[in-house]
Each structure stands twice: as C-alpha cells, then as structure tokens.
C-alpha cells in the first residue's frame, strides 16, 4: 500500500472506531438520562407509570407549602387544571418558589406522592416554560395550543 492510501485507511478506521464507540455510548447515556415531563393529571392517568425518574410540572397550589419544624423537609402540592400531586422535597427551595408559581420538579413516585430531588422555578416571575405550558394545555384539552405549531408545523 502506498503511504497516502495507508494514511487514509488509518484515518477511516480511526473515524469508524471513534464513531461506533461514541454512538454506542451516546445511545446508552441518552437512554439513561432522558427525563420526560408530565403534569399531575397525566401522572394520575398512568402516563408516567413506565418511568422511574421523570419531571413533574405544574403550578404550586396556593396555601399548600408546609415546612417541617425540625428539618429542611418541605411538602407542597403541584396542580394543573384537572389534577393535583403532593410533593415532598428536602432542601433549599429556589428563590422564586411560592404560591401559584410554575415549577418543574425532578424525582420519582413513592406510593401516592412525588419525591423530588430537584425543584426549579424560573427566574422570571411572568414566565412559564413553554414546554410546561404545552404539556398543561395538552393534558387539559388533549390538543395543542395554537402557539405549539409556529415553529413550522409541529402538530
């Protein structure tokens, strides 16, 4: 083999090997770390039953936030139009966490309540994450809101 061909062969083999490893690992890692977003009513209808860890999105029900007297345990209820889900979280809640704030909590179900490992509230109080708005609209009407299609024909 002449040097140019040999070099090309090495390059191609390297690329193929790297790509295979990367794709394999990538698919594996993606599968492990894809978190779906559900609203309380979707969870109650069983949509999340296949997912161990998922994200729960909705509004904090007014007056539902309770703090433990001795630890950092907080309990509150996340609601959407048709459902409610009690949530437990131990730790520091985000700055904007309050009644009627839209939040996304990551965690898992433990019997009838959701145990969160992370709670996010957006930094802008007028802002509701688009995906949450969509999910809530979907759960509510089971059809997407008109804004959902403006990116170019997503159903």
């Amino acid at each position, binding site marked *: 083999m002449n*040097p*140019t061909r040999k*070099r090309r062969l*090495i*390059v191609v083999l*390297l*690329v193929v090997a*790297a*790509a295979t490893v*990367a794709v394999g*690992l*990538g698919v594996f*890692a*993606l599968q*492990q*770390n*894809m*978190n*779906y*977003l559900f609203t309380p009513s979707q969870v109650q209808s069983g949509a999340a039953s296949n997912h161990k860890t998922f*994200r729960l999105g909705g509004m904090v029900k007014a007056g539902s936030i309770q*703090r433990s*007297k*001795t*630890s*950092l345990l907080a309990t509150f209820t996340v609601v959407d139009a048709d459902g409610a889900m009690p949530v437990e979280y*131990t*730790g*520091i*809640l985000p*700055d*904007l966490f309050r009644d009627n704030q839209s939040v996304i909590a*990551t965690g898992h179900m433990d019997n009838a309540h959701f145990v969160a490992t992370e709670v996010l509230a*957006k*930094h*802008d*109080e007028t*802002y509701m*994450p*688009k*995906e949450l708005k*969509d*999910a809530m609209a979907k759960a509510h009407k089971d059809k997407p809101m008109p*804004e*959902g299609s*403006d*990116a170019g024909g*997503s*159903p």
Partner: protein
Amino acid sequence: MTPELGQIALILALLLALAQSILPIVGAWKNNSAMMAVARPAAFGQGFFVVMAFVLLVWAFLHFDFSVQYVADNSNLALPWYYRITAVWGAHEGSMLLWIFILNVWTLALALFSGQLPEAFAARVLGVLGIISVGFLAFILFTSDPFGRLIPMPPDGGDLNPVLQDPGMTFHPPVIYMGYVGFSVAFAFSIAALLGGELEQAWVRWARPWTNIAWAFLTCGIVAGSWWAYAELGWGGWWFWDPVENASFMPWLVGTALIHAQAVTEKRGSLRAWTILLSIFAFSLSLLGTFLVRSGVLTSVHSFASDPRRGLFILCFLIVVVGGSLLLYALRAPKVAGGKPFAVVSRESAILVGNLMFTVAAAMVLLGTLFPLIGDALNLGKISVGPPYFGLLFPLLMLPIVLLLPFGPYLRWGKGEPQILKRVMLRALLAAVACAIVAAFFVDGKLKAIAGVAAAVWVAVGVLLYVVKRWREMPRGRRYPAEMAGMLFAHAGVAIFLIGVLLSESLSATSDVRMAPGETKTIGGYDFRFDGVRETQGPNWRADQGTVTVTRDGKPVAVMQPQKRTYTREQIQTESAIYPGLTRDLYVALGEPMDKQHIDGAWALRLYYKPFIRWLWFGGLMMMLGGFVSACDRRFRIRRTAIVDVAEPMRTSVLAENRT
C-alpha cells in the same frame, strides 16, 4: 432624536456592508483592482456607523431615555451607571447589537493589519466578513430593533435582570462574543481560500494568530461564565451542562481542534480540507450558540414563539451560512487537499486523534443540547437530557487527549521516534503513580481524586520534561519561541484544570442545613456559626443579610455575609458569600427563612467546603494565556518580503483558476 439617529446609522452600516460583501468578491473574481479596493473603505465606513449606533444606545441608557422601549425594559432610575452600560447587552436586541459591534472591531482590525496580504485574498476575506455583517444587520433592523420607541414614555423603567447585576457580568458577554465572533475571521480565511482555490498553505499561517486570539477570548469568556455561575447563580456549581453553557462550549471544542489542525496544515500542508471544515463548523456553532442563547429558543424549549419572524430569519441565515459554505467546500475542497504523508507514530496522528475526540465531544454535546428539539419534532414527548449524560461521555472522550498530551511536543512531524516516547512515558508514569500513591493517603481513598492527581501529574511532568529538554539543548534566545511557549502554557493549564475539577468534584463537602441563630455546623473541618439575619439596603435592592462566623479549631477564619436580595420589581436574587483560598473555598448561601414572618429566626443555609476549586479557573486562564502568547509568535507577522515569495505563485494560480 438619538434613537432615530441610531436606526439611520444601522441602515447606513447595512448599505456599506452590502458594498463590502459584493464588490470585493466580484472584483477578486474578475481581477478588478478598483472593485477590490472598495473592501477597506467600506469596512471602515461600516465600522464607523455601527460604533455610532452602539454609542447611541449606551447614551440612551446613561440618560434614562425611557422613550426607547429597550431602555425602558432593562433599566430604571435606581440602577447604577455601570449596570446601565452593561444593560445594553442585558437582553436580546442589545446583545445582537453588541455582536455586530464586535464583528466590526474584528473587521476593522483585519482591514488595518491585512495590508501585506495579497490583494485578492484580503478582498475575499473582507467580503466574507461583509456578508456575515449583512446578515446580522438585517436581522437587527428587521426583527430585533433596539431603538424602537415606546409611546407614551413611562416615568421609570423596568429593571435589568438581577442575575446580570454582578461585576462578572460586565465583561462576560463581550469577552465571549469576542471569541464567538473571532471565529468568523478563521471562517472568512477558509472561505476566501476555497473561493480562490489557494494551492499554497500560506493562508493558514495568516489565519492562525486570529484563530488563536479568538480561541483565547472564548476560553476567557467561558471561564468568566463558569465563575459567574459559581458566584452569582447562587448554588456553588461551576458547570451544569445547561444549554446556554453548552452553546459556548461547542465552538470551544471545535475551536480547540481547529487551532491544532491549523498547526498541522501550516507546518506540513496535511489536513487542509479538514482545517477548512473545522473553521466552518466552529463558526456555524458560534452562530448557533448566539441564537440559542438569545433568541429564546432554549428557555422556551422548542418554539421560536416570541416572534415567528425572528425564528424564521435565524433558520434562513443559518441555512445560508452553513449550507452555502458546506456546498462551496464540497465543490472546492478536493482542489485544495494535499500535503506530506505521515506515519502512525507522528505528531500529525496525535493531533488527529485529539481532533477526532474534540469533534466527537462537540457532536455529543450538540446532540444532548438539541435532543429536546428533536424529541419534540418527532413527537416523543417533552424530554430533557440530564447532566449525567454529559458527565459520563465527556470525560471518556477527553481521556485519550489527556493520555496523549505529554507526548505531543516530543513527537516529530511526519515520523516520531519511539525510544524518546518510551522514556517520556516511563518518567511521567512513574511520577504520576508516585504522586497518586502519596495523594491516596490524603483523600480517604477517593478514586476520582486519586485519578485527578495522577492525570494532572502525568500532563505536568510531560510539559516539564519538555521545558527542561529545550533549556538544555537549545541556545539562549531560541529556547522558547512564542508559539511553543503558548503551547506549553496551555498544556500546563490543562494539568491545573484537571486538579481543580477532579479534586473539587470528589472532595467537596456540602450541607443544606436548617440553622437557628447561635447554632454551629462543622463541614470539612471548619465550624460555621450562624449569627442570624438582619435587613440591609443597596442602591436598587433591599436584602436579608446573614452573618456566619467561621472558625477552625477555635481560631477565627472568616466572617461571611451572604444575602438574599429583593430588587425593585420584586425579583429575588441570592448573593452567596465566598471566602477564597488557594487550596479551598468556603461558600455560604442563604436559602429561605423557616418562618417568613420572623427573618431573625432559623434559616435554611447551604454550606460548602470546596477544595482546589479555584484551580480550574486558573487552569482555564492559563489556557487563555497560551492562546494569546502563541498568537504573538514572530513567524505570524507578515512581512512584505516573505509575502512576495508565496504570493506570486498563488496569484498566478488564482489567475489560472479564473481563466478556466
């Protein structure tokens, strides 16, 4: 009146940008000197008007011109003057103006320092920069006008996002944009080379200092951003694999590959097509990054909803730039390919492996970042990709690079000498193992920390051995040319960075605790005593300020005062308190009062003991320094005499090209 002047300035700049993009490129094609000569004056004119527009917006902010919508949205009477200046790039419209402003800074620098370049090549480079300018100016004028009027004029404005009210924020966006936009210069050089069908590789040497400087700025910007996340976003993390961070990290990864590939192309002529492809990718990812962060595509995951025209424009612009340049690449790259062959054990191969790892890593980050968009388009549901995805893949991809790093300088171009490599490997390995064993006694057998010490020593010893070798073998004055010194700085930076990352990640101690005044908690050998919270006042905020006294074995260490600020529009912002040190940081952030009515009672607090965290930013700054130092190499200074030699055959080749 000023806002209208700003708008007119932008329109004039757009017209000049059109002239700068069309005439010189056509001129270079037709070999018409008069048309090519338009490039520089047009660039100066465009620069003048863009600077004018930028200054006018700053002026509007400084003078509280709330009749301008953008000013009214992002500032108010209580905002201090320095934050009113940074408010210029506090939201979408202004940051686009900052982008075009910085593009013009680069263009002006290029117009000034390209006098020695061959006429046609310089015309093409400036022309390509002009095209980018046209795209951005049109985007600003048609979809994101920062000078739009607000009628009636409100008596007071809104507020700058409190997250942005921090000294770190004053220079983070401009620096990161210097990097993003700087890759447009490497891109323009590559496109110009493709357009002209350059057969010599001299253009790569002219492009190298520009790419190095852009890369160094981007490195600095990312370091600043990471620091800002650590200090300001409140919770002590330094990297979250958040889409906004990824947006700046992808061009960095490709840019790192690019500066190494450029070295190969310049010195050996190999990998030419690959170098061109990388510069196209680096700039495309910079564009994508700019838009992802600022257009709202990411915060509201899939929609371009805020303004459909904006989304459509972005999409079209990306398609034109990426698609157009890739098409040109497909047509022209075979012509510019070539170069000297190299063996498996050679510097080229090592750089190539590194390049592959960097590009695969960038692709991996891109996939993870855009996956929510893909999932949405394919109707898979609302998905997000968690940090563990990146956290697992990224170190694996970087491992080969770390392992190869010590050998880089020892490997010869073309064909390396295995004996020398074996010697280096043996020494570095011995040192790494010895240090790892010693370290194992200090870190309670934490594997990550031991690996961190070993990896850092491995890299550091490799760099040091080479420093010593040069010192011994070369005469004074020729030991460390700037290009090599930069490389050594940057590689040493990698070692320092590794220490910072792996030690702080594995040895940090965190605790979220509920503390009543007078209570003490012990973290990492330090005693944190909470002395309660009282109220305090700033120019445009009020805050609950806690006091935490830190002692170690009874000796006072620090008094820390974390705050929970409330800004004028009721936005809340956590200001952490950091007590820095070379071997550890202490970090305290206020959570929330346990009883909202009694802020003098118990609070939730986050306490951190973070060993060696500072090293990761210091390592990053070393890499940045390396980029700047390399760019100063005398070889990169274009001299008239040197140019004539290479320019002559090239011009004839260009002419030959044009005739066919």
